[in-house]
């Protein structure tokens, strides 16, 4: 059976679909995160070198993954929006940015909590920390540009272009920061990921990452629904739906 995927690229038909999907992704997110936390904090063995403090990893690492994935997905939506001029893609891109920034911040914050007992410092100018910080700046720049432009269509296109420039630059920045650190002072601290990780640790991290994915999808769908209503408020279907809502 041929499915007409483009049907759901119209905000009017995507809005109710998103509404139906949100509870599923929300429930999945809650279940997976609870399982992941249980595995990570109760089942996983204590690390022989890092003690109990390493357990923050189960939040830290998936958050760092998400922060990077979301930026790439955001840029893909932005490019779809610029190439195909689909309204929904621009809305998806803008809806993802706050969640991505949140995960970047969580990764930095939990990283600081992990760094203090392990390295004795809240912050070191390690390559990964620095590029994560720059990623946060990129998210903030994206959101500020979007907020600074009054016309939502121009705002979406301009910030979409910025996201594309950013995604080209992310690997350049990452490698330049990496070489900067290694050329500059030598790796005084290397990220000591245990070479062989216990299977439960790996499983806990995978489950947490999946849970964060589900959370991201749920929250992005919620945000995109608000975005759709705001931008399409003059269209007939929104007027009709709102009218029906108040009467019924």
């Amino acid at each position, binding site marked *: 059976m041929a499915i007409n995927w483009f049907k759901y690229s119209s905000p009017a038909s995507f809005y109710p679909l998103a509404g139906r999907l949100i509870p599923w992704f929300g429930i999945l997110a809650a279940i997976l995160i609870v399982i992941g936390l249980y595995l990570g904090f109760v089942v996983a063995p204590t690390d022989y070198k890092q003690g109990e403090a390493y357990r923050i990893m189960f939040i830290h690492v998936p958050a760092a993954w998400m922060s990077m994935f979301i930026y790439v997905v955001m840029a893909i939506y932005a490019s779809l929006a610029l190439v195909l001029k689909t309204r929904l893609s621009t809305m998806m891109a803008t809806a993802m940015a706050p969640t991505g920034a949140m995960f970047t911040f969580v990764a930095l914050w939990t990283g600081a909590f992990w760094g203090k007992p392990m390295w004795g410092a809240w912050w070191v100018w390690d390559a990964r920390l620095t590029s994560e910080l720059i990623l946060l700046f990129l998210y903030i*720049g994206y959101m*500020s*540009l979007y907020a600074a432009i009054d016309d939502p269509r121009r705002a979406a*296109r301009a910030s979409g*272009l910025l996201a594309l420039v*950013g995604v080209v630059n992310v690997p350049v920045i990452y490698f330049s920061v990496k070489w*900067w650190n290694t*050329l500059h002072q030598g790796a005084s601290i290397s990220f000591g990921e245990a070479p062989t990780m216990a299977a439960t640790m790996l499983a806990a991290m995978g489950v947490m990452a999946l849970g964060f994915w589900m959370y991201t999808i749920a929250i992005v769908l919620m945000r995109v629904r608000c975005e759709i209503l705001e931008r399409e408020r003059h269209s007939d279907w929104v007027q009709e739906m709102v009218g029906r809502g108040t009467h019924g």
Partner: protein
Amino acid sequence: MSGSTSMFSMLACLLSREVKLAARRLPDVMTTLFFFVIVVSLFPLGVSPEIETLRTIAPGVVWVAALLASMLALGRLFGEDYRDGTLEQLLLAPQPLSLLVLVKIISHWLVTGAPLVLMSPLLGLQFGLSGEALGVLVATLLLGTPALSLVGAVGAALTLGLRGGGVLLSLLILPLYVPVLIFGAGAVEAVASGLGAGGHISLLAAFLVLALCGAPWVTASALRISLD
């Protein structure tokens, strides 16, 4: 007249116009240069006048000051033309917009970036850099400041005519300047500590080439979005 000659005459005309405008408004150009000199001169006051300390921080200080100076100058890249309507005429011109943008960026670099490059050896001397390090400093600035102008042009086009455009511009552009800063300052530092600067300079040149290929095109799209 064939198409290509008319295009080149148009580009040459645009270049001479930009340079002439800048020459008539020399104080504007000098402001950027003096900003650069002042920022660099503040560091010995704030950090320490000791020549050993200064020599270590010199590459970073000169480069950060060059970054800020070139960013501050970006407001003038499209600002004037946007206000008086020239920019809309450029958008309507039959020549490819990305080429026109490239010419504007080159002329902008000639009046804001090139003076910084010329001034930098003097500042390096104040910080006690050796002759070899001074040469590398000039070489990296010569490669790096055009890259800054190119990358910055994207931000300047995106923030055209916005409230608080200047501050927003710095938020958008400074993270993208990071690679230039790292390789530029890194090259000088490598020479100062007895290592070769070749690797850094090659990477800087690679970044410049990448920016040269991508930035005019992206800037042109950004201008179309901003003037839509």
